[in-house]
């Protein structure tokens, strides 16, 4: 009898170890995985599109509340209230706690606080020092100085991001984005992204930049190290791709004609032409007025010196800095620059596509030393 009691006690204690697991299994049994999302595709302006779609559905299906007026319709969605108004102008310092939809233009004075999302079907202007949760505009959108967007902002028209403005997540526009100094966001996506001081004059090219170094070598090229390149350190990985052991600091214009992996730092002189994809295990520095047609990838920091023109994707495992006059343009197709660290945009930068960082993309005023026509050519 005692043995039986001990056995039961032992089994009960043993089961206790697995009781939570047993209950969890009863809940899961017969069900399919909940995290399946087969239809997932990546959309850069997903937040704006999703918000618009949800709002449209709510406004089409929810009845207007009885306290609605001709100028202000009110809808209840669970605990939330949605205010729908024609054109609206908010005075300075106003606090709004409800979701706001304006069917025309919208503007607000300085230091307002919008604690829920705002949808504007016309043009929109936000006063300095205002804080918003998220904002979607079907027209042009002008964010004043030192505005704070806690989440995302999306515009159909041109989006101007004022100086010192902070956008915690994405800024997207279907037309263009202008980023003023010290403003930052986590990512920017638009057919055209520009920083202040845009100047579309072509940069001057020097008449004599020195001999052009070819990688890979052509028959007849010298076999000894010169201009920072040692042919003995260049190996074929097969498949037309090459690897270079150690740092590669080229002091003359480079013509890169094949994919290259550099197991160290890489830098090239001004007016280089990079047609092949390039990967560096450490930092990449591209000389002024170079043309980059291949993709650039590095595990360290990336610096594009003034007036570099790129037509590809840039990816840096560290920080990235795009100097004065950098252009990222490609016919019929966007380009992209992504950094795991801070991505810094100087003045007079135009990029058609996407600029993003795991931390932040920040615009700065270009230091005077970099401005043309002083030291940009060296």
């Amino acid at each position: 009898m005692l043995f039986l009691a001990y056995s039961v006690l032992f089994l009960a204690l043993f089961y206790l170890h697995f009781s939570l697991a047993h209950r969890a299994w009863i809940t899961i049994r017969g069900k399919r995985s909940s995290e399946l999302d087969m239809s997932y595709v990546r959309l850069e302006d997903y937040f704006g599109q999703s918000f618009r779609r949800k709002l449209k559905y709510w406004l089409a299906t929810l009845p207007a509340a009885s306290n609605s007026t001709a100028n202000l319709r009110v809808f209840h969605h669970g605990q939330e209230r949605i205010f729908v108004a024609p054109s609206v102008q908010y005075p300075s310092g106003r606090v709004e706690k409800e979701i706001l939809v304006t069917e025309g233009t919208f503007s607000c004075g300085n230091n307002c606080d919008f604690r829920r999302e705002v949808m504007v079907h016309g043009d929109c202007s936000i006063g300095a020092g205002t804080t918003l949760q998220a904002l979607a505009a079907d027209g042009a959108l002008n964010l004043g100085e030192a505005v704070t967007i806690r989440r995302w902002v999306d515009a159909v028209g041109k989006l101007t991001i004022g100086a010192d403005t902070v956008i915690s997540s994405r800024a997207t526009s279907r037309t263009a984005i202008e980023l003023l100094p010290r403003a930052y966001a986590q990512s920017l996506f638009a057919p055209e992204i520009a920083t202040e001081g845009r100047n579309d004059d072509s940069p001057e090219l020097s008449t004599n930049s020195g001999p052009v170094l070819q990688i890979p070598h052509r028959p007849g090229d010298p076999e000894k190290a010169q201009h920072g390149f040692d042919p003995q350190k260049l190996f074929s990985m097969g498949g037309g791709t090459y690897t270079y052991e150690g740092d590669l600091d080229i002091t003359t214009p480079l013509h890169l004609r094949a994919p290259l992996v550099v197991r160290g730092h890489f830098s090239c002189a001004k007016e280089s032409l990079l047609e092949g994809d390039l990967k560096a295990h450490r930092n990449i520095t591209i000389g002024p007025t170079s043309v980059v047609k291949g993709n650039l990838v590095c595990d360290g920091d990336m610096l594009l010196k003034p007036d570099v023109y790129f037509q590809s994707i840039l990816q840096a495992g560290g920080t990235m800095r795009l100097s004065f006059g950098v252009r990222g343009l490609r016919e019929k197709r966007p380009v992209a620059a992504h950094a795991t660290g801070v991505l810094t945009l100087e003045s007079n930068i135009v990029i058609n596509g996407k600029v993003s960082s795991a931390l932040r993309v920040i615009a700065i005023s270009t230091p005077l030393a970099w401005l043309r026509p002083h030291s940009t050519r060296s």
Partner: protein
Amino acid sequence: MAITALIIFSWTLIGIAMVVLSAYAVRHYYLAYSRLRIAHPRETDELVGFVMPRITVFIPMHNEERVARDVLQAIVDCDYDWELLEVIPVNDRSTDSTRAIVDDFARRYPFIKPYHRSEGSGGKPAALIEATVNATGEIYLMFDADYVPGRAVLKMLTAPFLDPEIGAVMGRVVPHNIGDSLLSCLLSLERSAGYQSVQQARYNLGFTAQFGGTVGGVRAAALRAVGGWNPESLTEDTDITFALLLNGWRTAYVNRAECYEEVPQDWGVRRRQLSRWVTGHTECLHNYWPDLVRARCLTRSEKWDAIFLLAMYLTAPVIVLGWLASLVLFFVPEAHAVPVLPIAMLIIGYQLFSNQATFLEIGVATLLDGTRLRALLMPLSLFNFFANTAAICNALRKFYWNRFWGSGGDGWYKTHRTRPGPDDQGFGLNQAPSEATRQSLKGLYRANNQGMGD
């Protein structure tokens, strides 16, 4: 004298087991910790500005009538440009209606070009070698026939190739049949830990990810450069990972490139699947460890990581030998003469430290995936652990026996599919799901693609 020798031998075995398993435990802890610590995991799947190359998708099939429609329709529904897409279903000597299903798709979609194989040696590598001859893509993607790729997977698996050092890419495997059996649910925990924790952590740390031929891609030029698929290997994916690595090519991992898999639902199927992996993996260890040790293109930590990865199945016999040695010491009175307390403390400390390590990886994965209910099943993984240990030991015994006597291995074993086929009454992924099921699956399969293509 003999008793003393036995005691010394047993203590030595226990010591070896503790050292080896502690080393693996340190690795598990480090990977789990680093996966949580790095706020911004390494991503190489930028899609904006990505110039889509021409790709060839291979789907090896051997008697896959239950699942063939699902995978083909899912690939048709992907958002990749059809002009740049070539799909080669490799029908390897099927005797069921796989051929008819594949041909039906080929009639409807001109980019589907079946390769029917009626003779030659069996197995996936042999079929792939033949099918690759006619492929025109710059990138080869591969899916197992029971996998269902998500809509964006083709682009996501191709995008990392913008890095010229990337020779292969691996996506994430997510089981979809977690509720069908306790085993499939426990395997889903194992998969989460393997991909969400370990693969991503290793990739974040700069180690090469392990390429899997079930959902992955390889650069055609890189594959040619290393001599193509190894027809002798049972795990051609592991083999190609290390062949590429030794030639300077890396393998990228894309956690968001999800592909939905049917994991085994009974222990017999699981045991045979595991047996094939163990044999292939250990074969790769024997083939590649000398080259890995000598490789100049790898850092010391990369070499250690690669050896740890390839030798991981050897931990199972080490554990078993440790247990046997413990039993010997327990039952031999002469062994009790040694100071028991410090040794007991050492063993308890080791048990607390080492045995929890893999559970930590599962915990990290469930935390990141937000599947906390499933995390409660972790104690049941104990049974899975015992079953795996037995299966691995048995597979290794066979492997070394065959190796010693120079006889051939078990050959290729095809994993049994349990998904209801088109003629069954159950819910196959190729069947139009009910509205309730569609909602619960967030649109798994066709829900948002009605009428597309056909």
